[in-house]
């Protein structure tokens, strides 16, 4: 939701500052006159969205908030109104729950390592495909983007083969050169990096596609000017490409971060949170509490903690990476 306000906000500001068109006051008057009529049509056109949004988003969001202050459990499934109000109890308990804190740490680990890796590699792939590689460019683009559209279950099966410690691809390659590969998914040290590697590979395509679009929007005359002034490839990248790609990178970073903070599928299908909870993420912990143990109140509180974290980080990113050049 906050994503759309990012790119849209500067535009709106630009419109407001524009001198022509009779100024603010004139527009306001006109808007007022036809407000109700416009609104009616507008509301009618948005009904399908509003109904779906209300039923599948707004109601659940509010219900979850309410539930997070109750001890809603399995018994309350048939008697929902008997759930007791427990105030902030769920929230205080969360921060004394070792498992949740571990999940929070693991999620942090996943984001801190995964997001920069995805962005850097995605950008690299985009630059290479945009400039360096001319033959079979489409093939490469499809190749990098294919993991994004492949279902996670299929991906998990393949990666399990690749990472298998006894007859997996990596283990076999390692034994060819006389090394022993670690048991990637079975070791507490290696399980998380393995999942991160898989997530980076899976999400790199999205970042790449965004960056290619961004790169093609950079005017060639700017680059030409830089080259005439004697800029090398590295200087061009630092001085031209990255600054002009900033809005794209911001957007890519924000969606990747949100996606990674919600990470669920990778540990769910690959490790089930193990070994010894080393890949247990907040979403997975929430799923377990909610659907395996039926602590709906507690799981809802978790959902809200995660929501606040995501909100906070997103706002922070939008602030920090905002385009200050305009």
């Amino acid at each position: 939701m906050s994503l759309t306000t990012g790119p849209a906000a500067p535009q709106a500001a630009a419109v407001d500052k524009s001198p022509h068109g009779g100024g603010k006051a004139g527009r306001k008057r006109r808007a007022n006159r036809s407000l109700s009529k416009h609104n009616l049509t507008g509301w009618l056109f948005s009904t399908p969205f509003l109904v779906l949004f209300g039923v599948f988003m707004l109601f659940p969001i509010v219900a979850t908030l309410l539930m997070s202050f109750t001890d809603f459990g399995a018994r309350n499934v048939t008697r929902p109104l008997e759930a007791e109000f427990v105030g902030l109890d769920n929230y205080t308990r969360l921060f004394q729950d070792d498992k949740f804190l571990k999940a929070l740490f693991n999620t942090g680990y996943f984001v801190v390592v995964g997001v920069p890796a995805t962005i850097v590699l995605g950008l690299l792939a985009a630059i290479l495909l945009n400039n360096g590689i001319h033959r079979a460019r489409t093939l490469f683009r499809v190749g990098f983007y294919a993991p994004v559209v492949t279902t996670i279950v299929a991906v998990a099966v393949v990666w399990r083969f690749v990472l298998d410690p006894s007859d997996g691809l990596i283990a076999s390659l390692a034994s060819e050169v006389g090394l022993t590969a670690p048991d990637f998914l079975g070791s507490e040290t290696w399980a998380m990096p393995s999942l991160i590697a898989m997530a980076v590979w899976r999400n790199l395509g999205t970042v790449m596609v965004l960056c290619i679009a961004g790169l093609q929007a950079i005017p060639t005359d700017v680059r030409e000017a830089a080259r005439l002034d004697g800029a090398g490839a590295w200087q061009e990248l630092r001085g031209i490409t990255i600054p002009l790609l900033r809005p794209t990178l911001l957007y890519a970073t924000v969606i990747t971060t949100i996606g990674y903070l919600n990470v669920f599928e990778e540990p769910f299908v690959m490790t089930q949170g193990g070994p010894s909870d080393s890949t247990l993420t907040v979403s997975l912990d929430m799923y377990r509490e909610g659907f395996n143990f039926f602590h709906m109140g507690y799981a809802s509180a978790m959902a809200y903690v995660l929501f606040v974290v995501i909100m906070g980080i997103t706002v922070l990113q939008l602030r920090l990476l905002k385009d200050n050049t305009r």
Partner: protein
Amino acid sequence: MNRATATGSIALTLASALTLTACGGSGGAGVAADAKQTLTVWAMGTEGEKLGDVAEEYEKTHSNLTVKVTPIGWDVAHQKLVAAAAAGKLPDVVQMGGSYLGEFADMGVLEPVDSKTIHETDYFPAAWQQGSYDGKTYGAPWYVDTRVLFYRTDLAKKAGIEKAPATMADLQSAAEAYQKKAGSKWGLSIQPGGLDTVQSFYQFLYSAGGAIIDDDGKAAVNSAAAVKALENYGSYFDKGLSEKSVRPGYDVTKDFNTGAVPMFFGGPWLTNLIDENYPDLKDKWAVAPVPADAASVSMAGGSSLAISADSDHKAAAKELVAYLTGEKGQTDWFERTNDLPANTAAWTSGDLADDPTMQVWRQQMDTARATPSQPKLTEITSKVDTAIESVTQGKSSAKEALDKAQSEIEGLVQ
């Protein structure tokens, strides 16, 4: 994205729950057994697929009935049942996995079993116990499941093992012999950690005379017997006899075939699986009762059939359940599925009475133990899973791990 999905599902459950209270129960006196009606039945996994054939046969003798069987995958079964219970839309007859029963009985959505048609003495004690919660029986035992020792007889010869290990001490020396003399990579396959590790541990726990919840319904997971059992379990990992890390979805039969794993504890469905997938392995393996410690006690699993408390077709549903759990229905069911009958009368004829392999299962089932039905059973066993994992990974002693589990479980037992 995923958070939204989860939130959505949480709220949908609540929404349907609210709808239920608004509409109230469907109530009513119900329809007589011989009236024209449709019975809805939900069954899981293989049972769900095969029950449809039985339903067709049943319809032939009960022309007033249409029996509609809906198969449900085990992976989604729990969520589906919870959502249906919340909405008051449970089918007339539903298959209840052993671990579900306590939870649903506690919600008050199941009808107690009719003691006039279903008698406790007809079934294995452990099977009956799984259908009971809080002094009442809600599920008629349908089929049972237990674990016995599967072992490679050809490799046993090489290792100098003459007969199946009879005691826990024998089991460990057999594992060592397999590894040293027969060249097996591992000695015994037991689960080191993760979800449902407890199912692998039950054989050690119960045989040592321990339990998670004792007969008085109190948490007892740190008893001396349980600590001893977990020390024994952990020693297989310390000595390198069992693999310390096992991937989710690990298929033991593959390693059993190659000989990397010469022994494991498995359920009845594996017999067919091994025969079908590895025909070359025929006559190279056998089953034996769980090696004895204080006694030879295995875990009991399986499913029972319950009738929904809201059902309008209770009379006809009771007749169907009585048929399925009676001797004739049980024998027929065994022929179709190889599920072990819960009704002991079914074991008196045919293969069930004559086949020596079946006698191993029978013998194990007589003493097998079920975990008492508890509404929070999944959560309770997950605490034991964690305790086992910390021992197999060498992070804590058996005593410490079980003391911790005990204190957590005490708060969950009802």
